[in-house]
């Protein structure tokens, strides 16, 4: 059943043939098949198979299809078309180099993630069974470990836009705190020391764009605040 026609303005750029990026307008008659923005993008790709974007799980857990939708970052697969206006503008995530159309080069983002040593460090020999962790200690990881590395937060952050190489960005910092606060991790001081410079963390100005766009409802600003307090405690 038709639910009316929508207009999609989509950012297009193929480095091999376009001197500059441009916006292309598509029309799509929505049917019951088109629930989310991703369904619409897939239908538009049938109209024009050169339209390029990443997608995989279509249920908001793989983090492939982060895009900028009418000015706000989000996952195309979780954005219900009913919540969008008549005219929908889709651009690549801002602040990262565009490879093609809605596909950005994520390497800068991944590099920042790698810098925080995103793995558990424990200098004690592993026990024969699991390391024990109380439910209360485990609860500290809630709201942190669920990050899907979609980059919606970091690419909405003006501090990251200005210093994508030096400011780690909200996602990497959220993940940094995930390991700092893990009761099983023994490298807390080293982790804090690595963040203790003018840029890595302290470029966060508390703008909180990251919080408003996170498709998983996580709060990087809060995590950054916790690290900031720990750094100030160490300093004080």
């Amino acid at each position, binding site marked *: 059943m038709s639910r009316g026609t929508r207009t999609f303005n989509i950012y297009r750029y*193929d*480095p*091999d*043939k376009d001197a500059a990026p441009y916006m292309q307008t598509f029309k799509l008659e929505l049917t019951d098949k088109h*629930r989310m923005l991703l369904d619409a993008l897939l239908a538009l*790709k*049938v109209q024009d*198979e*050169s339209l*390029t*974007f*990443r*997608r*995989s*799980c*279509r*249920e*908001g*857990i*793989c*983090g*492939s299809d982060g895009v900028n939708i009418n000015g706000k970052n989000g996952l195309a697969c*979780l954005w*219900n078309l009913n919540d969008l206006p008549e005219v929908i503008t889709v651009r690549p995530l801002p602040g990262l180099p565009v*490879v*093609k*159309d809605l*596909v950005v080069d*994520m390497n800068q983002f*991944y590099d920042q993630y*790698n810098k925080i*040593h*995103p*793995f*558990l460090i*424990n200098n004690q020999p*592993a026990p*024969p*069974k*699991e*390391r*024990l*962790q*109380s*439910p209360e*200690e*485990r609860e500290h*990881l809630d709201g942190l*470990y*669920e990050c*899907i*590395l979609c980059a919606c937060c970091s690419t909405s952050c003006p501090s990251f836009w200005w210093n994508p190489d030096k400011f780690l960005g909200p996602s990497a910092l959220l993940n940094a705190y995930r*390991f700092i606060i*893990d009761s*099983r*991790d023994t490298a807390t001081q080293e982790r804090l020391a690595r963040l203790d410079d003018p840029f890595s963390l302290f470029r966060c100005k508390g703008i909180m764009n990251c919080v408003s766009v996170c498709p998983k409802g996580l709060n990087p600003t809060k995590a950054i605040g916790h690290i900031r307090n720990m750094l100030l405690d160490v300093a004080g």
Partner: protein
Amino acid sequence: MGAITPKEDYTNIPHETFDAVIVGGGGSGMRASYQLAQAGLKVAVLTKVFPTRSHTVAAQGGIGASLGNMQEDNWHYHFYDTVKGSDWLGDQDAIEYMTREAPQVVYELEHMGMPFDRNADGTIYQRPFGGHSANYGEKAVPRACAAADRTGHALLHTLYQSNVKMGTQFFVEWIALDLIRNEAGDVLGVTAIDQETGKIAVFQAKATLFATGGAGRVYRASTNAYINTGDGLGMAARAGIPLQDMEFWQFHPTGVAGAGVLLTEGCRGEGAILRNDAGEPFMERYAPTLKDLAPRDFVSRSMDQEIKEGRGCGPKKDYILLDMTHLGAETIMKRLPSVFEIGKKFANVDITKEPIPVVPTIHYQMGGIPTNIHGQVVVPEGSETEAFAAHYDKDSDIYSTNAGDRNFTKPVKGFYAIGECSCVSVHGANRLGTNSLLDLVVFGKAAGEHIIDYVTKHHGDEYQPLPTTVLEQTVARIRKLDDSSTGENAQEVADAIRDIVQDHAGVFRTTALLEEGVKQILAIEPRVRNIHLKDKSKVFNTARVEALEVENLYEVAKATLISAAARKECRGAHTVVDFEESPDHPAYPYGRRDDEWMKHTLWFSSDNRLEYKPVRYKPLSVAAIPPKPRTF
């Protein structure tokens, strides 16, 4: 690394060499790469998507291991449940290996940092899951080690993090295209395309490991990600490797009706109940002991039976309701937070207040590339085609695996496969929930260990010379697409393949439908070979990738329908109405015909030939579990 474009001369082959090339960066591939990188081997992981976007990430409910943290449990129970869950098609040596190793690999994941939920005493939280029981079927036992309902996400990210620690070399958004075999049949590596530049290259390795995942997108309605197109299966089949047991596809009982998105069996593990239009908790009728926690094939059939008999819900009476309203908002938000989100986003349902419409939805492929417990790909010796003769002694109830002198498990030198693309076979005719994540890490580790041994002790520094035709097949396929000026749209052909498989190989199958499906899938071949790529661009051309994927999908579709049409019995997920019998039939309970069909199917792409090989009935150290009627 050097690379060539399709239009360039390919006689001068630029390529890079590795100790091991792993194709696929999901749970099994990264468990193996971790092992190999730790041992200091030179490893390349080719991955179609950034590793944490692999479909392992979508697993929800848990990873099975008899830790016994909640109630008394041991691997013997887990072994028994898995054999029975497999409907006696699983190989009992492999099942023993997996269930015995389970606690160890789960502890290792925990040591790597995996954020499992915890009990008050600090141990890993475990929840009940379908088909998992204590004391050989007596009652349900909590065996699923869980990180809320995000266990796959927690596992995949933890493995990625461990690989970051080890400095594993990933080739992200590189797509393997063809398996390289020499005249002796040894596997020497793969050809691959870099999505970002469109260039192709050769990755040569002493050991090539496929960890390419399942092909759930061969069905129209699937819980699977778009990337699950069976690339490893297609590559293996084209290279002459048979595919095993491809008629066995798991329908997960609780896909969101209409959307296909998965709702974990952990919902029922936490107490959710399936209800028909009268509100009746009907699973009590079908499975008096395990009820809603019977294995998936059993529950899916029961649901479809309810719908068939007119007790489905909704205006079209075409779905079942999953009721969680009695669990309480607190439990739901703590144990099933993602299910809550999915309900809201994909069904407009607040699961704390109302039940959610579900239908059995394709979820998992039990079959795959045949392997042994070391992950080595194994094929029948020689090319004999005589039919496999079953040796079943009805009096002694003993099934002998003696099928003459033929060796059915000859390793293909240099070739390994693990995870959903493989068939070892631990899942047989029906996988138990939580055994999938377990399969990934157990056999990821086992293959890693075997490859280390193979590369360091037996293979030395020698790389075999590549065949002169190494790139021919790959380049021909890419050129054909690049030169195409008319023809079929790739997605339309893929959808046609999906429709055929969906409509002919469902929960309840019939001989007539399966035979019609075979006819249709063979008839569609000209369309598959006549795909027109309109977009010829080089940079990040996803249309080209999707066109190449269709060829892989097609191999899977043929394997599925041809294998299914030939199996004249009901076993696990393969239920053919023509062969259905009652549960208490003296020889064929539920229509399972052990005297003739307790054997694995092997499908060969070259001539659509089927061969059969015996089930490995003898475990490694314990007594075999003899076949019996499968009631729950």
